[in-house]
């Protein structure tokens, strides 16, 4: 047995190193798994589900014009982004999602690369958390977790992102306003 272990020492160490490296790379990936929220779609009255991976990002970027000023700006913004994922659920009644649903997302954001930049909680407006993932000094991911009595939103951008440019997007690019704040004005006594 001792001889066997002695002979296997090198392959075992090499294997362990490779496994550790694989898990380390996986752990640093700022992609959030949102599969645990699938069951909320059946309860939601409104759903936004966006899944754009790196390949689709490149294809979409090719369709953005360099001549159009607005599209040029957004093309610069999405350059280098490896994926955009959004899950947004709006409900007609309170309490449609559980604390476990929130925790399934929040637990992923407790990883070493993630830092919580903003955490706003209020009884009236719900919770809003903004996380950034860092690879060294570089931002390589963004996550927004917004929870309200009747709303549950997870936004995940994988790759370098310029927050200042992103912040200027509101009201541009022909995308209709989603009325995020208006949903909070709904009466809460429907239950």
């Amino acid at each position: 047995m001792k001889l066997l272990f002695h002979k296997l020492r090198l392959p075992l160490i090499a294997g362990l190193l490779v496994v550790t490296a694989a898990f380390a790379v996986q752990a640093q990936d700022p992609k959030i798994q949102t599969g645990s929220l699938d069951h909320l779609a059946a309860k939601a009255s409104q759903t936004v589900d966006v899944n754009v991976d790196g390949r689709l990002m490149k294809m979409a970027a090719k369709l953005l014009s360099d001549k159009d000023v607005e599209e040029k700006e957004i093309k610069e913004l999405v350059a280098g982004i490896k994926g955009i994922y959004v899950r947004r659920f709006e409900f007609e009644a309170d309490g449609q999602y559980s604390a476990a649903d929130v925790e399934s997302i929040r637990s992923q954001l407790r990883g070493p690369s993630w830092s919580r930049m903003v955490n706003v909680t209020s009884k009236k407006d719900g919770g809003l958390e903004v996380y950034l993932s860092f690879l060294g000094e570089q931002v390589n991911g963004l996550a927004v977790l917004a929870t309200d009595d009747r709303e549950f939103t997870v936004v995940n951008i994988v790759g370098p992102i310029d927050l200042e440019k992103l912040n200027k997007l509101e009201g541009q690019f022909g995308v209709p306003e989603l009325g995020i704040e208006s949903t909070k004005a709904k009466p809460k006594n429907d239950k």
Partner: protein
Amino acid sequence: MNEDYLWDKSGQPDPQIQELEQILAPLRYQPKSLKLPVVRRRNYWPLAIAATVLIALLVTGVWLRSRTEKPQQQQEAKFVPSVVTEETPTPVVVKNTKLRRKPFHKPRSNKRVFTKHEREEALAAKEQVLLALRLTSEKLRLAQRRTQGPPPNQIKNQHKSDKRS
């Protein structure tokens, strides 16, 4: 000639027989113990276990990759109009192409790049990207308003200054 000599070496030997015996003497049977050739058996255990570890790593890698890419297969964005009546509580799925206000002008150069199917896919992806960025932007601005704090880049710097301190 005494034939008994040929039978059991008794009696008087024939000289020719004796001469033949001397000639053939080196070839006489020499009794000695059996020695089997030593064959060194190779130990294949390290190789087999290394191969098993390698296969396990490959399977793990494939599994992790498929696990990561599985949610990305949904490429259709679902959006439901914000006005929902009580008669229709179930979610309605509307393709994002209806959400555009501005008609899309395809660049001429892209005609050569994409096939029809790829172009449709890219258009849908573009709409999803715009929708996602819009939503993200709104959330960030909302966060900024609620914190009454600095814009996001300053928030980022705040993080760095926190780390320094």
